């Protein structure tokens, strides 16, 4: 059971993800112009199918106060909440917030991996998954690809030490950026991941996020939830 947790919202992409052998997908739209109607249409089209479609919100923010406000605003509406990383303060704030599900490419536009031992410890405590985005790796110039592979190695080293959730996503905007799960697993060998770790990042971590969010929607107060 493999999931792709970062795909641009489009019917064509969802069809292709299903064809490539994934079990579920999370479609994202920018949080500024979010519109849940389209996702609802997609979900209603596939009610009979076992293929899962979830709706996610990507949060873009320049400062911590704004980030907190946007998380508060979007949390209940989205199945998956992803924070657009890259800025060190945003990376740290996202890792410290248990309402965030995933921090997206914390290494974006940086000369380091964007995660240090403190953020890694906080991410593990709050179960915030760190995203390794395949699109980011493949869109960069081939002669600079070694840098991104180096960042992924650094994140992997921290993950083995602090055990925070790690997730691999395609970040696809078109069908030309989608790959089969086994191809992605093969690609992860390039930065030192083994098959078990890669499969876990593509299947178990997404499933845990979905389960956690399904449970949290039934929580009435802290420590009590409605069992259906």
């Amino acid at each position: 059971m493999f999931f792709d947790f970062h795909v641009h919202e489009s019917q064509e992409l969802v069809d292709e993800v299903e064809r490539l052998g994934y079990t579920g997908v999370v479609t994202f739209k920018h949080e500024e112009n979010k519109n849940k109607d389209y996702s609802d249409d997609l979900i209603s089209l596939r009610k009979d199918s076992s293929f899962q479609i979830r709706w996610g919100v990507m949060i873009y923010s320049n400062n911590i106060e704004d980030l907190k406000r946007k998380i508060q605003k979007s949390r209940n509406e989205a199945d998956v909440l992803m924070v657009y990383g890259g800025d060190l303060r945003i990376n740290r704030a996202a890792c410290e917030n248990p309402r965030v599900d995933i921090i997206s490419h914390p290494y974006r536009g940086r000369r380091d991996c964007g995660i240090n031992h403190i953020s890694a410890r906080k991410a593990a405590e709050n179960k915030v998954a760190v995203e390794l985005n395949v699109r980011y790796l493949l869109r960069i110039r081939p002669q600079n690809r070694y840098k991104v592979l180096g960042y992924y190695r650094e994140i992997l080293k921290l993950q083995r030490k602090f055990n925070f959730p790690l997730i691999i996503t395609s970040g696809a905007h078109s069908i030309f950026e989608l790959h089969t799960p086994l191809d992605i697993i093969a690609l992860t060998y390039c930065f030192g991941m083994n098959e078990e770790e890669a499969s876990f990042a593509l299947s178990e971590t997404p499933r845990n996020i979905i389960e956690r969010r399904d449970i949290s929607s039934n929580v009435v107060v802290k420590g009590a939830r409605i069992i259906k």
Partner: protein
Amino acid sequence: MKLKILPPHMRNKKRYLAFEVISETLINREDVIPIIWGALWDMYGSCGISRFDLWVIKIWNYDTPEKHVMKGILRCKREEVHSVRSIIPTITRFKSGRVVFHTLGISGSIHSATKKFIYNKL
């Protein structure tokens, strides 16, 4: 004089990797080989490529009105199959058009790779 062939137990063990190519622009059989080799150069260099014993066996054309599709079979050493597979997703562009490669499956013989992955859909 031709070199005498090695006994079977001393030959390199091979694997056959079936793949499909979906392209935005028209793509020929002759284009597929340089695309794969270019990606290999970028990822592993000449030292890495020398380990793979790579060969493009055959390519089939499956063009549809909507998109250009090709399928093919790639041969490599059994021990290096994961390394060869890892370059498949790194191929993203060809002649300013977008292109994507998907691995359909890996097999031990050309016959079974063709039967299982080329004539059947993914």
